[in-house]
C-alpha cells in the first residue's frame, strides 16, 4: 500500500509522511476556520448560548435555588402561583414549585432528546446514504431511496405523533418515535454528496489500487461529506428539540411531574392569561435554546459554504 501511494502521487514520499502532511493541512484549515467563525459575532453568541445552557443543565443541582422542586414530587400550596420576584425569578407554578429551577432542569430533557436522537439517526442515515449513493443505479440504491421517499412523504411531526401514540408515553419512546422519522433526511443529504463524489478521481484511484468497499465508503467518500453533515446536525438540534417539546406539549413525551419544557408550557396553558409566567418562561427557554443552535448552525454553514442543506 505504501509503495502504491508513492507511485500514485508521483513523488518519493512514504505513507507516514503523507499522513503527517495531511494532518498538518487539516490543522491549518481548522485554525483558519476558527478565525473566520470567531469573526462572525452572531455565531459566537449562538455558540456561547449553547455552551452556557449545556453547562447549566449539567450543573443544575448546584446552581439552581430549589433543585428539589424539579427532581422529586414537591408541593407548597402556601407559595403557589406567585408572580416573578427576587426569590422566584420566573415565579412559581400552581403547586408552588420554582419555575426557574424547573426550567434549568428542563434543558436536560431537551438536550438529551437532541443528543440521543441525532446519535441514533446520523450513523444509520449516513451509512444508508453512502451505500445507496456509491452503488447508484443498483437494486440496493433503489430499495434504500424508495423507502426514504416514503418516510419523507409525510411531515415528520405527524408520523412521530402517531408512533409515540401507540407506545407508552415517556421521554425514551418519544426519542424512538422521532428517530424513526428523522434518518431519511441524512440519507438523502449523504446520497446527493456520495453520487457526486463516486466519480471523483480519488475514488476511482482507490478502486484501481484494490481498496475494499468499506475503505472507499468510510475513508475516501465519508470525510468529504462531513462538513454538510455537521452543519445539518447543528441546525437539526433545534428542530429535534422543537419536535420533542411539541410531543411533550401534547402529553406524549416527558411526563409530569418531570419538568420537560413542553410539559411545563402545556400544564401552564390552563392558567392563561392570569398566571402567564407558568407557561411563558419555559416557552421562552425553548426559543432561546433553539435560537442558540440555529445561530451556531448558520455560522457553521457559512464556514463550510455547504450547499443543499
Amino acid at each position, binding site marked *: 500500500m505504501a509503495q502504491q501511494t508513492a507511485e500514485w502521487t508521483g513523488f518519493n514520499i512514504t505513507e507516514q509522511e503523507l499522513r503527517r502532511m495531511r494532518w498538518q493541512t487539516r490543522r491549518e484549515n481548522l485554525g483558519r476556520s476558527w478565525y473566520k467563525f470567531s469573526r462572525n459575532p452572531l455565531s459566537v453568541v449562538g455558540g456561547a448560548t449553547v455552551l452556557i445552557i449545556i453547562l447549566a443543565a449539567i450543573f443544575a443541582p448546584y446552581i439552581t435555588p430549589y433543585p428539589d422542586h424539579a427532581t422529586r414530587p414537591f408541593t407548597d400550596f402556601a407559595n403557589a402561583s406567585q408572580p416573578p420576584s427576587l426569590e422566584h425569578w420566573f415565579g412559581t407554578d400552581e403547586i408552588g414549585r420554582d419555575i426557574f429551577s424547573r426550567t434549568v432542569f428542563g434543558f436536560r430533557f431537551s438536550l438529551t432528546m437532541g443528543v440521543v436522537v441525532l446519535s441514533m439517526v446520523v450513523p444509520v442515515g449516513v451509512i444508508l446514504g453512502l451505500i445507496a449513493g456509491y452503488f447508484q443505479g443498483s437494486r440496493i440504491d433503489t430499495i434504500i431511496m*424508495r*423507502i426514504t*421517499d*416514503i*418516510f419523507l*412523504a*409525510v*411531515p*415528520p*411531526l*405527524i*408520523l412521530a*405523533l*402517531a*408512533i*409515540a*401514540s*401507540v407506545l407508552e408515553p415517556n421521554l425514551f419512546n418519544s426519542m424512538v418515535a422521532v428517530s424513526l422519522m428523522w434518518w431519511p433526511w441524512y440519507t438523502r443529504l449523504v446520497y446527493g454528496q456520495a453520487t457526486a463524489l463516486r466519480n471523483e478521481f480519488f475514488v476511482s484511484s482507490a478502486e484501481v489500487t484494490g481498496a475494499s468497499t468499506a475503505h472507499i465508503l468510510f475513508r475516501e467518500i465519508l470525510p468529504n461529506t462531513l462538513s454538510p453533515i455537521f452543519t445539518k446536525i447543528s441546525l437539526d438540534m*433545534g428542530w429535534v428539540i*422543537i419536535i420533542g*417539546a*411539541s410531543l411533550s*406539549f*401534547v*402529553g*406524549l413525551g416527558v411526563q409530569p411531574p418531570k419538568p420537560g419544557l*413542553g410539559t411545563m*408550557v402545556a400544564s401552564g*396553558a390552563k392558567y*392563561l*392569561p392570569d398566571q*402567564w409566567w407558568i*407557561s*411563558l418562561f419555559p*416557552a421562552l427557554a*425553548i*426559543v432561546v435554546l*433553539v*435560537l442558540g443552535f*440555529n*445561530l451556531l448552525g448558520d455560522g457553521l454553514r457559512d464556514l463550510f459554504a455547504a450547499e443543499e442543506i
Partner: protein
Amino acid sequence: MRTLTFIARRAFHAIFVLLGLSIVIFIIARIMPGDPARVAVGARAPEWVVEQLREQMHLNDPLPIQYYYWLTDALHGDFGISLVTRRNVADDIREFFPASLELAFTSLLITAVLGIGLGTLSARHKDKFIDNVVRVISYMGVVTPSFVFAILFLLLFGYVLDLFPTIGRLSEGVPRPPTVTGFMTIDSLLAGNFTALFDALHHLILPAMALAMGTMAQEARITRASMSENLTKDYIAAIRAFGVPERTVMGRFLLKPSLIATISIMGLDFAGGLANAFLVELIFVWPGLSRYGMNAILRKDLNAISAVILVLGVVFIVVNIIVDLVVARLDPRIGLRAARSD
C-alpha cells in the same frame, strides 16, 4: 405532451410512495399493544363477542392478508368506526377536513404574501436597517415552535388586547351558513351572509397567523437569499445595460428566477403547516382534522389515526406534484430535464 409525461411519472411515483406509506401506517397500527377487537367492544364484553369480532376483522389471519383487507377497505373509503366519536371515520374526516384545509390555505396565503414581500424588501435594502429588522423577525419565526406562537398570540391579541376571538370558527349566536364547500368563509359568501363571513375571518386570523409565522420566516429568508444572489447575476446587469427600465428589471427579470426557489419549498411549507396544525388547532379549539387526529392519537383511536395520516399523506403528495408542475412551468431548465431524463 411534456407536461403529460411529467405528470404520469410523478403520479406513478406517488402511488408507489402511498402504498409504502400505507404499509408503514398498518405496521404502526399493529404494533400497538393490546387487542383491537377487545378495544373496540370494551373491557366488559364477553369473550365470544371478542372472538367473533376478531374473525370479522380478519385479526386471526396472517399479517399480509390482514393488510390486504385493510387496504381494500381503505381504498373504498372505509376506515372503520372511530372509537372516540363512535361514527364512521370517513364521515368524520369529511366533516373536519374542510376546516383544516381552510386554515392551512389561509396560512399559506399569509406565508406567501408576507414571506415573499418581506424577503423582497430585505433583498432590495440589503444590509440596511430594514433588512436587519426583517432578518431578526425571520430568525425568531424559524426558532419559535408554532405552539409557542399560538400561546403568545392567544395571550396578547386574544386576552390582553382583546382584538380577536380565541376559540372555534364562529361566534355563538351568529347564524351558520349552509355547508356547501365546508369552508366557512366561502359558504358564508355563497349564502350572502356577511355577518358570518366577517365573523369567520375574524376567527381565522389568529390561528392562521400562528401557523404561518414559522413558514413565513422560512420563505422570507429564502426569497432574500435567492434575490440578493440573482441581483449579482450577469443577466440582470445585461438587461439593465440595454436600457430596460428598473421597474421591469425588478418586477419581471429578477422576480421570476428568484421566486422559483421560494415556490419549490412551498409544498414543504404547506405540509409543515398541516403538521403544526396538530398543536395549533388544539390550542384554538379549531374543529379541524388535525384536532380530530390529535384527539385520536391521545385516545389511541387507531382507525382514526390511520385515516388521518393517510389523508395527510395524499394531500402532501398532491401538493408537491402541483408545486413541481408550477416550478417546471416557471423554469424551463427543470421542465426540459424532467421530460428528457429516463
